[in-house]
């Protein structure tokens, strides 16, 4: 390996050089396990060239591939030196505090062999389509073929993936919700679910689509059944025509939030997670009909998304940060991670349904951002296009990321997530 070892050194001008070892979990790109000596002021590009050279030499790949580098569970964004020195500083602090339980931190330092994990870079999303509406788009959801959007002009739009417009008062018998609406209705006017006193802010069906949970401005969380013999659509929003639908009453009401429930999600069969404007995230046991735990934040939560894959929740609140919470643990700091890059209120966050590390966020600064959980300092990609505030995002269809905003458009970005 001597020639590879020498080359980065010959081009380097920095005095500091580091020992690194490249590992990967993607078997097809594995390279021999040798420590390399690399000058410290290299970034991802230089590391990429090293990996690519080895891979091409070994005939693993034909052409260049882009990789991202994980060091200590964090993506390399600046230079290697920056990151290592930051860890060094952190280590000193830990030693000062006599708190040496964080063994992982100790592996990264000027004098150790740094283990660099490389993964294939998430490809950039491409703008795919832009659907024009007559009014602000306030809600969006998607299945594999259909996109459903709710609008401020009290209409619901069902779009095919191709962008063909199918206006309609909805299909199937989904429950319909719409802001400032007193009643919570079902679609195609099968039922109107009445009970909420104020506008319904959020709704989510459970995994089998037999129950619905909805949260409203009055701080109440209600659970509704959907008759099992009807095929249910996936968490859709429909138009209310109260004259046709039969009235439905809630199966259960969970009161506990003091203010508007802004997001609700089923975490398993019998458990609900809600986020509210009263600065709390609560876990509810549906079977018992009561609250299990609550996590207090210090800002009003605007949106929350819980991931099936990594069992953590990301939240957006009345500031520009996105915070990662782990509802299962209640020791240590509640906020596990903070993602800061937006310049306005983050109105909506959504985990990827296929990759446990990726999520999207839409903000009032007109940007939708694609994030990796492991890169809290910078998002992976910014998706521009909106000219006004983004109000809603969706990544329910793993191929497409969508965002709707107050510029009356729904923008669709194709997510090229061919990883795993």
């Amino acid at each position: 390996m001597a020639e590879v070892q020498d080359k980065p050194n010959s081009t380097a001008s920095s005095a500091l050089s580091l020992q690194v070892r490249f590992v990967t979990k993607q078997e097809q790109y594995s390279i021999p396990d040798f420590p390399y000596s690399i000058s410290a002021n290299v970034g991802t590009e230089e590391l990429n060239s090293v990996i690519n050279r080895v891979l091409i030499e070994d005939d693993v790949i034909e052409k260049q591939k882009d990789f991202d580098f994980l060091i200590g569970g964090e993506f390399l964004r600046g230079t290697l030196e920056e990151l290592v020195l930051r860890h060094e500083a952190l280590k000193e602090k830990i030693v000062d505090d006599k708190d040496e339980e964080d063994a992982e931190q100790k592996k990264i330092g000027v004098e150790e062999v740094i283990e660099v994990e490389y993964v294939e870079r998430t490809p950039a999303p491409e703008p795919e389509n832009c659907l024009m509406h007559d009014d602000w788009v306030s809600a969006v959801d998607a299945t594999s073929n259909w996109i459903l959007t709710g609008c401020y002009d009290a209409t619901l739009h069902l779009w095919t993936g191709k962008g063909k417009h199918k206006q309609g008062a909805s299909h199937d018998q989904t429950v319909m919700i719409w802001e400032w609406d007193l009643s919570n209705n079902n679609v195609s006017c099968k039922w109107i679910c009445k009970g909420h006193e104020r506008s319904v802010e959020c709704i989510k069906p459970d995994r089998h689509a037999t129950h619905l949970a909805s949260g409203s401005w009055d701080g109440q969380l209600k659970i509704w059944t959907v008759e099992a013999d009807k095929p249910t659509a996936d968490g859709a929003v429909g138009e209310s025509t109260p004259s046709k639908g039969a009235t439905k009453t809630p199966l259960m009401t969970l009161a506990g939030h003091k203010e508007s429930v802004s997001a609700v999600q089923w975490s398993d069969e019998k458990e609900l997670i809600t986020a509210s404007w009263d600065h709390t995230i609560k876990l509810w046991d549906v079977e018992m009909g009561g609250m299990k735990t609550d996590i207090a934040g210090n800002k009003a939560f605007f949106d929350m998304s819980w991931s099936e894959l990594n069992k953590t929740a990301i939240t957006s609140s009345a500031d520009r940060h996105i915070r990662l919470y782990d509802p299962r643990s209640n020791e240590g700091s509640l906020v596990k991670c903070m993602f800061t890059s937006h310049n306005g209120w983050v109105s909506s966050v959504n985990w990827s349904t296929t990759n446990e590390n990726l999520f999207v966020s839409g903000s009032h600064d007109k940007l939708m951002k694609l994030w990796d959980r492991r890169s809290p300092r910078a998002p992976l990609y910014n998706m521009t296009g909106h000219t006004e505030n983004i109000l809603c995002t969706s990544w329910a269809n793993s191929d497409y990321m969508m965002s709707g905003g107050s510029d009356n458009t729904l923008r669709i970005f194709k997510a090229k997530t061919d990883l795993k």
Partner: protein
Amino acid sequence: MLRTVKDLQTGQNVVLSDKDLEFVKRIQSGKIPDSNFDNFAPWIDWFSSDVMDTPLRSMPPSKTSFLPSKIDKMKISKMVHAIKMGWMKPKPKPSTEPNFYMLWESDDKADEMRRVHDHIPAPKVRLPSNAESYNPPSEYLFDEKEMKDWDSKDDEPWKRRYNFIPQKYKSLREVPAYDNYTRERFQRCLDLYLCPRAKKMRLTIKAEDLVPQLPNPKDLQPFPTICSMIFKGHSHMVRSITLEPHGQFFASGSEDGTVKVWEIATGRCMKTFEFGCVIRWVEWCPNKSLSLLAVAADSDVMLINPGVGDKLIIEKTDLLLSETPDQGDYHPSERVKGAVQWEPVDEEKWSKGIRILIRHFKNVNQVTWHAKGDYFASVMSDGQNRSVLIHQLSSRRSQLPLNRSKGLIQCVLFHPIRPIFFIATQRHVRVYDLLKQEMVKKLISGAKWISSMSIHPGGDNVIVGTYDKKVMWFDLDLSTKPYQTLRFHGNAVRSVAFHKRYPLFASGSDDCNLIISHGMVYNDLLQNPLIVPVKKLRGHDKFSDFGILSIMFHNMQPWVFSSGADKTIRLYT
């Protein structure tokens, strides 16, 4: 030989032998006669203190050695008697003072020698300068102008720069005697002797100590820090904003003749009501079971149903207001009738959202609701003695609380808990008890012109904003004078507001600054409120000398809204 000696006892001659002779000689020389006697034989102390096993003598000690001596006893008793009788005294102790000492010993210990404590040194005589020299540089010598000046001040010599004329001599020898020498010395002695000297006390207070100890604003979070949303849509100055009691919406009234209802979370304008005249004030009815918004447009006060929020309540409100309550044989007095009229609402107005229309005889400046939502008051600044009216919604009657004009009334306020009514005239705030119908207090602001006031939700503290740039905090329990006056604004203060839940208050001014302060009121009566300014928010643009016109807090979140002359409403979080 002389060895033969006559023995006197026997009378016989005895011849002395050699031995005898030596014997005699030893005696004569004073030695021990026996020549064999060892003069320095080792001493054996037979009667030592050591107790022997077999004592040399075994005599018991004599009895007398145990008895006190009788003679001694007699002597002692004599002495005791003499002491008792005072005949015998102890010898006086010899004095320990040395007979001779160093007279000048303490010379080096200056402090002990000083007659005057805290000695103040005499003021020093000014040292002679170059002008006093016998050979001064030529610039010190008087020219003609200075000479003339010297001459002109003959009458008032103390005004002269020097008390002598600098002169130049070739050598020190030629210097004549100084005429004033004796007098000057005498003056100096007088100075030293007669002038009282005082020690100059140096001020040891540091500037930092004078600044009151205020907590760090960081510890007082949460408070709004950043502009999060701008609500655009009005085409003229936004005069007034008001929050829906649930905190989901707010309404704004503008000079362009419209009232708009906005959703806070998204910034969406939900409804627009057109009136075609200047909207001076909007205020949402605090009763959560009514959906009503009071609007002051020119000389009308309108209660409109904004139609947002709970549908049931919207319908109920419409139903409630569609029928007029039976007035019975109630007839308003002429005075009330001349001031205000409840007009029936026709179909067209009803469809525009107007539910109740009250015509006033002058332009209405302000409308404010009682906390329960049944009574509301309207203010007409130029209404003279009929400038304040209190209306009751349920009976649809009006009354005039004031009989005489109290001055130019700026704004009024209901106490949040007790039946107390605040009326701000140009300079004072009058506090009326509505039950007893009398004035309880008069808060003296000392300002020239009050613009606005707001009351703490606890009801014991009032802040008043004035057009002369001040914000005053009144503690009603403490005094009728302001507890604190805050002068942070560079221009007229237009609006002040308290937060309902957080210890925050804010003031908005024509200099486009919105200042957020922490105003903690303690339940403990002994502790005065803590007021700390925490944040200055800028954002609005100036428009024809107006800056921020109205501010309000969100009821639940630590957010503040401000409406400005630049047609926008801003939300700071």
